[in-house]
């Protein structure tokens, strides 16, 4: 990420604005059909070779927020090291006026990692990266929407919901009645606030990630890992006696088989949240990669026809991604409820 080769710079920029560009492409294509004389002036003209690396650059984290050419938002860098202590500065300091990376105050930004220019000392990087900024936006949006909803309940006591309240309420009821209640059982109310928070965080994150120029927050493995880790903690801390008995001394298993079952059950404690982490990360990141790959085809082939074809296709994939955004939020919440339900379930049939 640090090497902004001048020739690649316009190309790198194109990835975030690809959707806008493809829209422009469609309109230009219509012009082209009307007047055949309209030349071959393509968006990517002037480039010899298109570098699809931009796709990966989009889906991973970054210390700057690159919306489009000339619209690069430098973000705060927060680093801590034993020798220098805590330091906060703008990531814009790592680039000169020609977008070339440069060292700043002894730090260099290399492949998205900050290290010392002259030493191997470990640096704790707590920078507000693109995804952290996205995280803040996501949280602000969720808080804004849900406070408005909560306010609606205060205003319309004993009345039918109105406005945004009537839009969000079915989602809350869906999570409560279709996801949490049937999977956790009678003690569901204790876990409901967490699971609702989880659902809305993933849903809003997924949907925001589909916006042009947005960061791939819920498709980042750090985010999904944290969420899965919370599921792991909640599941195992709410585990009752029969849950642990099932894992450590699975009922109805002959003694020799226990040598196999016990490790399997113990590994199972970790594979459950691990699968949650991978599923959300893979589903969202894959969606972004598919969308960007399709859009990049236009610039690889430098063809109007491909541009038109992929643009149409991208619209459909985008609709599917909207669906996936909901499904993944649902699935993550569903499996978390299921695991909690398994941990708190009373086994009285043995």
């Amino acid at each position: 990420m640090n090497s902004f080769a001048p020739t690649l710079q316009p190309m790198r920029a194109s990835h975030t604005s690809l959707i806008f560009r493809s829209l422009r492409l469609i309109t230009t294509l219509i012009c082209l059909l009307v007047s055949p004389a309209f030349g071959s002036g393509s968006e990517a003209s002037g480039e010899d070779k298109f570098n699809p690396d931009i796709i990966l650059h989009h889906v991973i984290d970054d210390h700057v927020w690159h919306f489009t050419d000339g619209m690069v938002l430098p973000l705060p860098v927060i680093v801590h090291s034993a020798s220098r202590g805590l330091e906060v500065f703008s990531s814009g300091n790592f680039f000169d006026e020609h977008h070339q990376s440069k060292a700043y105050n002894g730090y260099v930004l290399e492949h998205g990692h900050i290290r010392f220019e002259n030493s191997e000392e470990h640096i704790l990087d707590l920078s507000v990266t693109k995804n952290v900024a996205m995280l803040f936006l996501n949280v602000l949006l969720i808080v804004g929407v849900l406070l408005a909803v909560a306010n609606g309940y205060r205003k319309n006591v004993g009345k039918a919901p109105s406005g945004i309240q009537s839009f969000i309420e079915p989602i809350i009821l869906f999570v409560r009645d279709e996801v949490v209640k049937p999977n956790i059982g009678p003690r569901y109310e204790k876990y409901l606030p967490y699971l609702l928070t989880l659902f809305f965080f993933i849903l809003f994150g997924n949907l925001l990630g589909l916006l042009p120029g947005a960061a791939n927050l819920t498709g980042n493995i750090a985010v999904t890992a944290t969420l899965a880790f919370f599921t792991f903690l909640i599941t195992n801390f709410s585990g009752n006696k029969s849950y642990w008995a099932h894992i450590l001394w699975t009922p109805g298993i002959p003694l020799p088989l226990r040598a196999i079952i016990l490790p399997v059950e113990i590994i199972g404690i970790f594979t459950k949240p691990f699968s949650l982490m991978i599923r959300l990360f893979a589903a969202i990141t894959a969606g972004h990669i598919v969308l960007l790959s399709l859009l990049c085809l236009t610039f690889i082939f430098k063809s109007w026809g491909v541009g038109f074809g992929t643009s149409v296709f991208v619209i459909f994939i985008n609709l599917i991604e909207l669906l996936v955004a909901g499904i993944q939020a649902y699935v993550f919440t569903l499996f978390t409820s299921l695991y909690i339900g398994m941990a708190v379930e009373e086994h009285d049939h043995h």
Partner: protein
Amino acid sequence: MELLTPGTGLLFWQAVVFIALFLFLAKFAWKPILSSLKEREESIQQALASAEKAKNEMARLQSDNEKLLREAREERDRIIREARDASNKLIDQAQSEAKKSADRMLEDAKAVIQTEKQAALRDVKAQVAMFSIEIAEKLIRKNLSSDKAQKDLVEEFIKETKLN
């Protein structure tokens, strides 16, 4: 591979921000939202239950009404029947009594007539005897000279004594 290696900064921020978000929402969003939803559901449940109760109450009142009406009707029928029976009995009684007294009066009348008749007959017998004695006395008195005269005399007396 950077795709698969979680960044420490993002891990930290995600954990901190997500916990903060959870605590904030739990207090300021989920608590009021979930409790109002529950309240609303309970009030709907209550309204439905009370509607059901009112319906049952109505049905009960209606059946009570019908029962009362049926009882009243039966009571009325019974009273009418009893009255009719009583009146019939009275009429019968009156009739039989009237008949009895009429019979008795008839008997009395007959008895009176009988005695009157006897008395009359006795009277007539006495009269006849008296007339016979008078006729015999007159015959004897007149010293009957001739047969003709006797016969005329007898006839005359017979004419005189027109027995009816």
